[in-house]
């Protein structure tokens, strides 16, 4: 059965259809939840809450977007709620403007040309971002959610979402491609 048919069946009360939808999507949704929360325990809670909300709100899903996109939005909202509820996270104490020190400042992944290594370092850099910045850059640059959808689910204005996105991108670049002393001097 196609996903659209499963959604229609589940909305009509077929619990088996909803179960199949969960089976098809939960790994992906967990991936997003993990990237947003930065730890496994919170990610599990977020995923369970997201599917519960999806189940209760399935008759409100209009089908004008992909089911997965709708799930991403719910997951983003649940993760935002979980993080603002005060769940402690090891990086929350970092402010948005706290500079991130690179453990290997002399290493240049661009010169190495190693895409795999860049992804590994990007993963680490994402984990080090404050959750507020990480959420927007993950939702926009990884999951392609529109600015307005991101703003809605995080409970902020679209302008604020864009500001956070640009700040996050800048922070990632600074982290992954640190300027040499000469460049820093030139910039000043």
């Amino acid at each position, binding site marked *: 059965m196609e996903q659209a048919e499963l959604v229609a069946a589940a909305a009509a009360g077929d619990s088996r259809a909803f179960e199949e939808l969960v089976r098809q999507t*939960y790994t992906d949704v967990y991936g997003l939840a993990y990237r947003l929360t930065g730890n496994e325990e919170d990610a599990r809670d977020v995923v369970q809450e997201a599917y519960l909300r999806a189940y209760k709100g399935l008759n409100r899903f209009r089908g004008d977007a992909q089911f997965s996109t709708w799930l991403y939005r719910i997951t983003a909202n649940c993760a935002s709620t979980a993080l603002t509820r005060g769940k402690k996270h090891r990086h929350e104490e970092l402010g948005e403007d706290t500079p991130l020190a690179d453990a290997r400042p002399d290493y240049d992944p661009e010169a190495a040309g190693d895409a795999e290594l860049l992804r590994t370092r990007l993963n680490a850099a994402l984990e080090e971002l404050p959750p507020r910045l990480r959420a927007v850059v993950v939702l926009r640059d990884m999951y392609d959610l529109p600015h307005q959808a991101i703003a809605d689910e995080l409970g902020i204005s679209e302008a604020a979402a864009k500001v956070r996105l640009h700040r996050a991108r800048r922070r990632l670049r600074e982290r992954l491609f640190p300027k040499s002393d000469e460049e820093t001097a030139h910039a000043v």
Partner: protein
Amino acid sequence: MQCDDVARALPEIIDGGATADLALRRHVDQCLRCQAELAQYRKILRAMHQLRTEVLEPAPGLLADILAKVEEAGERRAVRSLLTKRRMAYAGAIAATAAAGAAGAVVYGRRRLRTA
């Protein structure tokens, strides 16, 4: 336009979210430093898209936990639905009884009037 102005604008334009104005494009065309910075942003964006395809496997048991929670919610919903139907049936019965009583009172009243 200075490199610092371009550096501030680059995070906005790398995914086409905002249009680069002519002055910015001209500067980037002629400035190796800004071209390098733009290339770095694009590399990061590509790497972000590639990360999207990486599967993060959850620990075993998550699927079962989700399904159990949903099933529990489904049962609660079914119970609520049943209670709502019963309440509606009771309310209907009470309304029917009241209507019958009122009709009886009207008939009784008319008979008494006729008798009088």
